[in-house]
């Protein structure tokens, strides 16, 4: 078995050979400490060259895109989304999800395996890959299940899944309740050089919970999920990573306590990485007041102190990267009593703008940090292609306007999902152009 994972190729190579020039943008690539105005040249699906601002003339076979006033960055990579296919094609397909990703500036997304049936074998992984290629939008990297059927009992065949194209394993949506299974998964995943991504939730503490446990849950009469449900599993996973030397990746961290535990682990050289979601960086449990089911997700929205801690952790790198946890649901499923509504919101098409609005605009992080957390760091953490604009890298590029403001209207989403708590919010930051393997897969006018 080869140690090298086969990389998904963009669906159509028809235009991949054409040459693209992204002219006059602010080229921002933290992977090589590059922040300069100039022209980025893409050819044969690779980054060919970068010319500092000047009057370089290009031959007719170059497709020139004017990027003046825009940021040109390595393409965003979302290591955590739910594309629902196979099983719930009524709420999202790999094609609609991959197109929504492209609209959001993502050149690659990792699809979580909690599909129906569960993506827990090489054939299922191959199917995800094939559908992703056919979509011809963002690259779709499959994540395989940790356990067969995500039942938390027997390990799935990591080796075959990795060989078929899986980039990580996770039972996301469900916690890995058994510490023994988690330990074994971390050990076994080491063999194949992939992270084990865990949804940290102590199931007996979280059972029946619909929101964060605190004053708001007490007022609303909703069963709460205490911060400790996440933190207990976070520290368990960190300790097991220390024991096994495996790479544990903690999904959607939401509490101040988790940040402290991750910091503790990193200080000791334990192989722990972590992600935060745009909604945990921007909204608090107060969004649940009024029983808005579009503010229902797991882990739940927490307190202001938690949000501040997560923001700080994204700034200082304790949290390595930003991932969307894009989770489309049918309108009818969210249009019901709060406790019965499913968890999750769509995020691919608002991620950049939410991070821009809540972190960059108030000066908590700078644009280079945003690009690092949304592109460079995800590529490094999950060992994926992209995440850099250095010569010879795959030409996965995102061009965005960091000042343009727009109002979120879920009816205009490319995703089939409409379940967004940002409906009606005016956000800053719009993706102008998304390029995958040198091919423009999303381009907005203007």
């Amino acid at each position, binding site marked *: 078995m080869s140690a090298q994972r086969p990389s998904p190729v963009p669906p159509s190579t028809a235009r991949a050979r054409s040459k693209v020039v992204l002219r006059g943008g602010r080229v921002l690539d933290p992977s090589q400490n590059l922040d300069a105005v100039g022209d980025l040249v893409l050819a044969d699906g690779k980054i060919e060259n970068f010319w500092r601002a000047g009057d370089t003339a290009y031959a007719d076979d170059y497709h020139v895109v004017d990027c003046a006033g825009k940021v040109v960055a390595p393409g965003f990579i979302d290591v955590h989304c739910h594309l629902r296919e196979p099983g719930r094609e009524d709420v999202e397909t790999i094609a609609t999800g991959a197109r929504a990703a492209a609209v959001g500036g993502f050149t690659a997304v990792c699809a979580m395996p909690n599909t129906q049936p569960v993506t827990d074998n090489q054939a299922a992984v191959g199917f995800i890959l094939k559908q992703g290629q056919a979509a011809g939008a963002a690259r779709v990297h499959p994540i395989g299940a940790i356990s067969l059927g995500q039942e938390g009992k027997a390990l799935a065949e990591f080796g075959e899944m990795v060989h078929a194209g899986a980039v990580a394993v996770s039972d996301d949506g469900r916690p890995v309740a058994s510490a023994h299974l988690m330990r074994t998964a971390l050990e076994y995943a080491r063999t194949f050089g992939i992270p084990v991504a865990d949804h940290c939730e102590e199931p007996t503490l979280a059972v029946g919970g619909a929101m964060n446990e605190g004053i708001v849950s007490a007022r609303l009469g909703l069963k709460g999920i205490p911060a400790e449900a996440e933190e207990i599993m976070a520290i368990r996973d960190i300790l097991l990573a220390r024991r096994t030397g495996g790479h544990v990746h903690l999904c959607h961290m939401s509490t101040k306590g988790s940040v402290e535990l991750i910091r503790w682990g990193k200080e000791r050289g334990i192989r722990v990485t972590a992600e935060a979601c745009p909604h945990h960086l921007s909204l608090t449990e107060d969004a649940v007041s009024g029983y808005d089911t579009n503010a229902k997700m797991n882990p739940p929205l927490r307190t202001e102190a938690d949000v501040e801690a997560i923001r700080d952790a994204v700034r200082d790198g304790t949290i390595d990267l930003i991932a969307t946890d894009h989770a489309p649901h049918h309108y009818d499923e969210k*249009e019901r009593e709060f406790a019965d509504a499913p968890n999750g919101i769509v995020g691919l098409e608002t991620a950049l703008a939410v991070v821009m609005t809540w972190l960059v605009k108030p000066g908590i992080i700078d644009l280079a940090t945003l690009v690092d957390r949304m592109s460079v760091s995800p590529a490094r953490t999950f060992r994926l292609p992209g995440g850099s604009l250095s010569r010879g890298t795959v030409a996965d590029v995102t061009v965005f306007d960091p000042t343009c403001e727009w109002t979120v209207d879920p009816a205009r989403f490319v995703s089939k999902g409409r379940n967004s708590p940002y409906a009606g919010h005016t956000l800053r930051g719009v993706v102008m152009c998304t390029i995958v393997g040198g091919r423009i897969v999303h381009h907005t006018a203007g």
Partner: protein
Amino acid sequence: MTSPLGKDLLALEPLTPEQIRLILDTAEPFKEISERAIKKVPTLRGSTIVNLFFEASTRTRISFEFAEKRLSADTVNVTASGSSVSKGETLVDTARNLEAMRIDMVVIRHSASGAAQFLAERIESNVVNAGDGTHEHPTQGLLDLLTLRDHFGSLEGRRVCICGDVLHSRVARSNIWGLKKLGAQVGVCGPRSLLPNAVAELGVEVFDRIEAAIEWAEALNVLRLQLERMQAGYIPSLREYSRVFGVTRERVERAPRDLLILHPGPMNRGVEIDSDVADGPHSVILEQVTNGVAVRMAVLYLLAGGRPELAEAAKRGEK
């Protein structure tokens, strides 16, 4: 018609003290109607009210029904065992169907917190919350306030302790907000496993021991202990609960002052409250039931656009 309460009565938390006093004041003239031989006034003649009960209820449903009938409204009772979901129809479809039948008001009891608000946001009819999950039970809170006011005159500075399973109690929440808005001091007493973790942030005194609560309080509102709490592991046994937290005659007799005893019913005699206490001289439990009808008449009257200053006239039978 805009009522001084707005379109709906969903909870006491968002109400102003003035709105709560208005309801209680409006209830006063309605009390007398129930004492007559012919217990009926034409105030809501022609109005249709649906009592939509997704959760079993005897007392609250009957109380609402009497209130509606004594105001001459046309009423329909819809009871569904289990939730609308298990019935196959979603709550929003149920609501739209009712709306299509041109009803004026819906009284809803539902096992999900927020269900009344959900309904209210989706239909134009007035919605009265008759208990939603573990959120609020505003008319119960109001009838408790009315009963306390009958005895205390004013609630300002009075000390009322809510005893028992506050965590799962919609009655507790409505009482806490209502009492605080009317200036009372509120205590809660129960095992910590049955109090919300953030209970102190609700602005109440917390008592771990029932003896301390009784020493402090001028009135106890004793909550029903749902028997399933024991199975769910919140408390080890009903026997121990009764011994540690039960409101017994012995304990009540040691109170330093006269104590009013309230209970929203139905009672578990011998568990949270002893029969001696429930039937004893300090108990106002049946007054609560009587006041329940008057308070609900007041709420329906006000939501229907009735003017509070005309409640006296309504009582006399003038529409």
